[in-house]
């Protein structure tokens, strides 16, 4: 089995059989932020707690990244192997809209309001060969 670790700690619960997005909730005004932060963007306070924000939401807006971005983009892709990816804001249950890569990458597969679910994907290998993983959202299939 390939060894994996998060590209960045604290963005999603890990390791976890059912990972969820991690955010912060302001203990004064109740507003959330992602990634978690100690201060509050809404009320200017600095009294927050890290909370799980779930793994499901709806697509609030989206676009498609058609060309391979320049640095600081860092994956194992080349311009030849680059695959366009969707980018969107997913509105979570708490109302916070989290920016994410999307598995869907065509106009016919993306629509405002569609139900989305979290998945953890490999993004690149580090110099020790460990596979670094990050989060993205994908269309939620009906049960």
């Amino acid at each position, binding site marked *: 089995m390939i060894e994996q670790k998060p590209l960045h700690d604290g963005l999603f619960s890990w390791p976890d059989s059912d990972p969820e997005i991690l955010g912060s909730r302001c203990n004064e005004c109740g507003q959330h932020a992602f990634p978690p932060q100690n201060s509050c963007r809404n009320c200017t306070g600095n009294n927050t707690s890290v909370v799980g924000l779930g793994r499901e939401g709806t697509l609030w807006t*989206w*676009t498609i990244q058609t*060309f391979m971005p320049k640095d*600081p983009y*860092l994956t194992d892709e080349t311009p030849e192997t680059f695959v366009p990816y969707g*980018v969107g804001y997913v509105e979570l249950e708490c109302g916070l809209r989290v920016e*994410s890569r999307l598995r869907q990458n065509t106009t016919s597969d993306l629509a*405002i309001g569609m139900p989305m679910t979290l998945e953890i994907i490999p993004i690149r290998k580090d110099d020790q060969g460990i596979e670094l993983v990050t989060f993205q959202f994908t269309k939620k299939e009906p049960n």
Partner: protein
Amino acid sequence: MDVAIVGLGLHPFGRSPSLSGLEQGAIAARAAMADAGTDFKAMQFAFGGSQDGGNADSMVNLLGLTGLQFTNIWNGCATGGSSLNAAYSAIKSGQYDIGLVTGFDKHPRGAFNPKPSEWGLDDWYGETGLMLTTQFFAMKLQRYMHDYNISRETLVSVAEKAFRNGSVTPTAWRQAALSREEIEQAPMVSEPLNKYMFCSPAEGGCALVICRADIAHNYTSKPIYLKTAVVRSRNYGSFEVFAPSQAPFVAESPTVTASRTAFELAGIGPEDVDVAQLQDTEVGAEIMHMAENGFCAHGDQEQWIAEGRTEITGALPVNTDGGCLANGEPVGASGLRQVYEICHQLRGSAGARQVPNSPKVGYTHVYGAPGISGVNILAV
């Protein structure tokens, strides 16, 4: 103390392989001072900004070491707005009588590649491909089109106008008008925006000489009065660039708050404006900024643009020099180019792109990451 703009200088936007960004800024500065019939020895202060062209105050090596106060300003794409705001305050407060505002840049080809650490973000955000301004503009517009029924035809019309206006602007980068078909068939960059719907990073320089209104006639027969210069950052809930998360609601943008304050301070309303420059980093930005600046209701842009109201001959000409779309965006200079163009329109010296019937009141709006807007109201 009232404030006047008495000198206008511009180094043409586009590509100038033989000149550094700083040199283009210095050329613009000398042109502005010559336009005012004065020189660098007379300048008591300067504010300047550049993203990729080096420190603005290095310009003293090219203009002369006179010992003046020279302060560098940096506010992303809104740098020009912030520089002019600082100069406005310097005159308004009575601290100085006359000074220079300058901006220049020289960007590499292709999209900007900002570093997360410079914007308070961690590396993962850039490494996973979320830190592109093009994505933000596309996503803001995508939602706006959904909420307010803006059509793709309207996006094409704005691009068509920009390049048509650029074709009658001798200093513009893009000098060729484009047909609707050419625009429609351009390669997609970031849905719903294609290649001709985005402006590109470019090169260029712009400068203004600004002074106390009561001495303005020593420098020009046609002073342009800077009624107000307002800069605002974002409030919680404003949908902004470089944001890993957004609030659960959409609040007023910094453009709305800067615009409203500017109109209040100037004591006029949007209906009094004869000619406007609105930040058009892409076609959707111009459309959305028409409403955010108070010129029409959200959704009314569809009708306004279909009726040609923002054309040079329309009721509210917008981006008469082709805006960022036709001029490109040298970040440090771009906000000042807007003011340069409005000053020419109010002087009646805009040539083939002159708005008819002697416009009296002009308006400029610049927007930059991560949510800064600068609004200026100008009048003769």
